[in-house]
C-alpha cells in the first residue's frame, strides 16, 4: 500500500481522493506516461479508460485511466486534464498495450488527441459519421439525430489469403458482430474484428434523460445474460462516490443473485459451445438443467432474467425462508446433473479433440492484452475481482478461484465448469449465514462531481463502472466497461493458424457478449457486410478477383 503511494508521489502524481476501493490521482500531461509506466511495473494492469467533458465545471476535458492494482486491492484512477483549446494528451498505449481501445474510443467520442498512439484510427465511430461531431460532448443532445455521411466501403485486402466475412448475422452467436477472417484453404491466417453494432447510446441517455435511480435499470439492460452484475457494479460505483454503506443483508442478497447469475450464464455457455461443436443434445441437456436456475431466479426476484432487484443503497425486495429452501433444492439438483453431464461429455472423444490445444492464448500475451475472467484464468493468470477487490458479501465468504494452465479452449471450459460448483457452494454459504436487518438505505445526499469506481466479477470477467455524480440526483458521466471489451482483442491471437471450422468455438470460448461491449459508441454502418444477399455478393466478387 505504502509502496504504491510512494510510486505515485515519486512520479509527480497527486492523490486527491483516497477511498477504500480506489485512489484518485491527478497528474499533469507531462508526467502521465512516466507514471503509468511506473505503475505498470509495480504490478498494476490496465483496466479501462474514460474520457469526460468537464467544461461546465472548469473548462477542461479530462481523461481517466483506471488501473487495477491487485496487490494493494485498489483501483488507481489517473486523471489527466487538458484545456479545450489544446486537446492533446500523451498516449500511454506505447507503455501499456491495453490502453489502445480506451484511448481510441475517447478520441472518437470526445475528440481528445492522444499523441504518440500507435494506431490512431477510428475504433467505434462508423466511417459514415461526420468529422467533428463528438457524441459524448456536453453540447450534443442525447436524442439528436445525425445525418450520415456516405463513404465508399473499405475492405482490408490481403494478397495471400481469401477473406471470409463472419457476421454480422451469423448463427454462431445470435448477435450482430463482424469478424473478417482471412483463410488459406481451411486454415486461418489472420482475423480482424469490426464490431460495435449494438450501440444504443446509453451512456448519453443516462446523462440526459435518466436519474440516478433509473440508471440501474438501464445498466441491467446492457446485457441480457449478465445484466445484474452491471446493475450491482453501477450501484457500487455510485455508493463509493457518495460514501454510502449498504446494509449487510442487502450485500448478502446481492451476492446470492450475482452467483445465481453466474451459474445460469456458465451453463448457457456450455450449451452454446456444445451447439457450436454440433452436439445439440448436449445443448438441450445443459439448457434443461439451466431452466431450474432460471426458475429459482424467477422465484427469488420475479423475473427470469432482469432481476430489477437493486437500487443505489441496497436491494428492493427481501428473501424469505420458503424461497431459500426452493433455491437450495434446485441448486442441489443442478449440481448433480451438471456433474453427470460434464463427465459424460468429456468422455466423448470427438468433442475433446475439437477443444483441446485449440485457440491458444499464451500467458504473457494474455497479461499484456489485459484479458479478464475465465479467459485469463484459463491462461494461468490468477485474477478474480471477488478476491482482489472484495465487494458485496464476498469478504465474508470462503471460495476458491479455479486456474488452469492449458491456455486453450479446454482450459476455459474447465475453469467455467469448476466455477459452477464453486458458485453453488457460495450460495449455500450465503443462505446459511445471511444476517437479518434492513435491506435498503432510503435517504442520502448526492454530492456534485464526486468520482466513484465500482467493480464486479461478471461471469465473463472483470466488470468496471466509473461514475461522476451530478446535482439533482443525476450522473455527470457514467462509463460501464464490460469484460468482453478487454477479451475481444485476444481473439485474433487465438484464431491465427487454426482451422476455419474451429473459429466459432474459439470465438465462443471467450463467451463474447457484444451487446455488453458495443453499447459504448456508434455502430459501424458501411463495413458491416452481411452473410446473405448483397454482402455475400460483394464477398464473392472479391473472391473472384
Amino acid at each position, binding site marked *: 500500500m505504502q509502496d504504491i503511494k510512494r510510486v505515485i508521489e515519486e512520479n509527480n502524481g497527486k492523490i486527491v481522493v483516497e477511498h477504500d476501493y480506489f485512489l484518485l490521482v491527478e497528474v499533469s500531461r507531462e508526467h502521465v506516461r512516466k507514471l503509468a509506466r511506473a505503475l505498470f511495473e509495480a504490478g498494476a494492469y490496465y483496466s479501462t479508460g474514460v474520457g469526460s467533458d468537464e467544461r461546465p465545471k472548469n473548462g477542461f476535458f479530462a481523461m481517466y485511466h483506471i488501473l487495477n492494482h491487485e496487490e494493494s486491492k485498489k483501483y488507481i484512477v489517473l486523471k489527466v486534464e487538458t484545456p479545450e483549446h489544446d486537446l492533446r494528451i500523451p498516449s500511454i498505449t506505447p507503455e501499456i498495450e491495453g490502453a489502445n481501445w480506451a484511448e481510441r474510443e475517447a478520441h472518437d467520442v470526445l475528440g481528445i488527441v492522444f499523441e504518440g498512439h500507435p494506431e490512431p484510427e477510428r475504433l467505434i465511430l462508423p466511417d459514415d459519421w461526420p468529422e467533428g461531431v463528438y457524441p459524448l460532448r456536453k453540447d450534443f443532445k442525447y436524442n439528436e439525430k445525425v445525418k450520415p455521411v456516405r463513404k465508399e466501403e473499405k475492405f482490408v485486402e490481403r494478397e495471400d489469403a481469401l477473406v*471470409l466475412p463472419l457476421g454480422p448475422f451469423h448463427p454462431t452467436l445470435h448477435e450482430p458482430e463482424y469478424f473478417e477472417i482471412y483463410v488459406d484453404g481451411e486454415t486461418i491466417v489472420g482475423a480482424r474484428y469490426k464490431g460495435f453494432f449494438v450501440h444504443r447510446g446509453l451512456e448519453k441517455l443516462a446523462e440526459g434523460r435518466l436519474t440516478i435511480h433509473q440508471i440501474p435499470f438501464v445498466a441491467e439492460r446492457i446485457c441480457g445474460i449478465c445484466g445484474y452484475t452491471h446493475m450491482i457494479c453501477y450501484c457500487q460505483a455510485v455508493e463509493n462516490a457518495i460514501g454510502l454503506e449498504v446494509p449487510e443483508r442487502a450485500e448478502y442478497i446481492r451476492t446470492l443473485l450475482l452467483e445465481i447469475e453466474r451459474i445460469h450464464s456458465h451453463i448457457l455457455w456450455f450449451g452454446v459451445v456444445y451447439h457450436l461443436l454440433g452436439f445439440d443434445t448436449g445443448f438441450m441437456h445443459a439448457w434443461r438443467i439451466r431452466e431450474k436456475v432460471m426458475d429459482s431466479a424467477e422465484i427469488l426476484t420475479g423475473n427470469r432474467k432482469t432481476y430489477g432487484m437493486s437500487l443505489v443503497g441496497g436491494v428492493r425486495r427481501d428473501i424469505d425462508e420458503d424461497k431459500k429452501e426452493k433455491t437450495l433444492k434446485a441448486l442441489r439438483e443442478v449440481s448433480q446433473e451438471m456433474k453427470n453431464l460434464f463427465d459424460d461429455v468429456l468422455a466423448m472423444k470427438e468433442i475433446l479433440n475439437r477443444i483441446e490445444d485449440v485457440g491458444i492464448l499464451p500467458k504473457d500475451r494474455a497479461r499484456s492484452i489485459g484479458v479478464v475472467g475465465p479467459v485469463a484464468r484459463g491462461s494461468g493468470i490468477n485474477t478474480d475481482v471477488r478476491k482482489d477487490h472484495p465487494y458485496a458479501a464476498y469478504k465474508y465468504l470462503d471460495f476458491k478461484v479455479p486456474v488452469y494452465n492449458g491456455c486453450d479452449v479446454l482450459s476455459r471450459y474447465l475453469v467455467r465448469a469448476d466455477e459452477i460448483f464453486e458458485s453453488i457452494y457460495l450460495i449455500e454459504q450465503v443462505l446459511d449465514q445471511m444476517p437479518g436487518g434492513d435491506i435498503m438505505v432510503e435517504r442520502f445526499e448526492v454530492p456534485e462531481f464526486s468520482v466513484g469506481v465500482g467493480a464486479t466479477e461478471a461471469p465473463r470477467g472483470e466488470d468496471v463502472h466509473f461514475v461522476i455524480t451530478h446535482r439533482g440526483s443525476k450522473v455527470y458521466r457514467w462509463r460501464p466497461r464490460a469484460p468482453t471489451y478487454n477479451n475481444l482483442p485476444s481473439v485474433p491471437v487465438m484464431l491465427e493458424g487454426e482451422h476455419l471450422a474451429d473459429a466459432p468455438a474459439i470465438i465462443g470460448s471467450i463467451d463474447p457478449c457484444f451487446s455488453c461491449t458495443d453499447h459504448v459508441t456508434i455502430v459501424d454502418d458501411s463495413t458491416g457486410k452481411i452473410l446473405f444477399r448483397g454482402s*455475400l455478393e460483394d464477398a464473392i466478387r472479391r473472391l473472384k478477383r
Partner: protein
Amino acid sequence: MNAIIAVIVNVIFALLYAPLIDGVERKIKARVQRRKGPPIQQTWYDILKLFKKEEIMPKDATKSIFISAPFMAFLSVLISYLFVPTILPGALYFYGDIIVVVYLLAFSSIAFFLGAFSSGNPYAQVGANREMSLAVVEEILLAFIVGSLAVLNRSLMLNKMFPLEIKVSSIILLAFYLVVMYIASARVPFDIAEAEPEIVEGPFIEYSGKYLAMCKYTIFLKRILLTSLFLNFVLPENVLWRTVGYVIGVVVIPVVLAMIEAHMGRMRIDQAVRFMKRLSVIGIFAWVISLFGW
C-alpha cells in the same frame, strides 16, 4: 409386368415414407433430449409449406444451373429406386445395375455441388467444397464396398446379390457398409458440409421455396435408399418374411441411427477425412479376403 407394379409401389412408398421417417427421427431425437418434439408428420407439413412458398433467385446465381440442380439431384435419387426394391421385392434389373446406383448417388452429390457453386454465395462454396471432399471419399468407399460384394457374388446385378451369402468378408463388408451409409446420409458428426454454426447450412443457403423442399426431400430419399439397399442385402428371399423384415428394418435402422446421431459432436473436415482413411484399411482387408472367397 409384376416388376413394373412393384417398382411403382416401391417408388410411391419411398416418396411417402421418406419425410415421415424423418418426422419419426425428430420425435426420437426429441425423446432422448427429454422433450416432446414435433408430431411425426411434421416433416410433411414442412415440405408442403415450402412448396407453397415463393422462390427467390439470388442476384449472382447462374440461374439455369441453380434451378435445375435440385431437380437433377432429386431425379437421380428417384431413378435409383427403379433398381433397388423397397417394400416389395422386384425392380428393374439389368446387367450392371450396381454401377448405375452408385453412379446416380454420386450424381446427386454432384448436383448439389453444382447448385451451390452456381448460387454465388461464399458459404455455399465452402459448403460445396466440404461436400465434395466428403463425397469423393464416401462414394469411393461405397463403390469399393459394392465392388467387393460384386466380387463375392461374381455379378454386377443387384438381384444376384439379394440376399448376400453369409461369409466372413460379407459380414465385414456389411458392417463397413453401415458406417458408410451413416456418413453418406449426412448425419452428425459427418454433416460437416451443412454445419449450421459454421457455414450456415452450406450448399442450401440460397435455396428457398420448392427448390429447398427438393433438396431436403432428396436427402430423405437418399437415406431410405441406402437403408433399403442394406436391408436387401440381409433379408431372406421368402416374400412374407422379407416384407415383415423390411418393415421392421426400415423403422428400426433410422431410429437407431437417430439415437446415435443425437449423441455425437460434429467432426472437423480433416478429422472426418482421416477417419475415413482409417476405415478404408478395413475395407481393403475385407476385399482381400473376399478375393479368397471366404
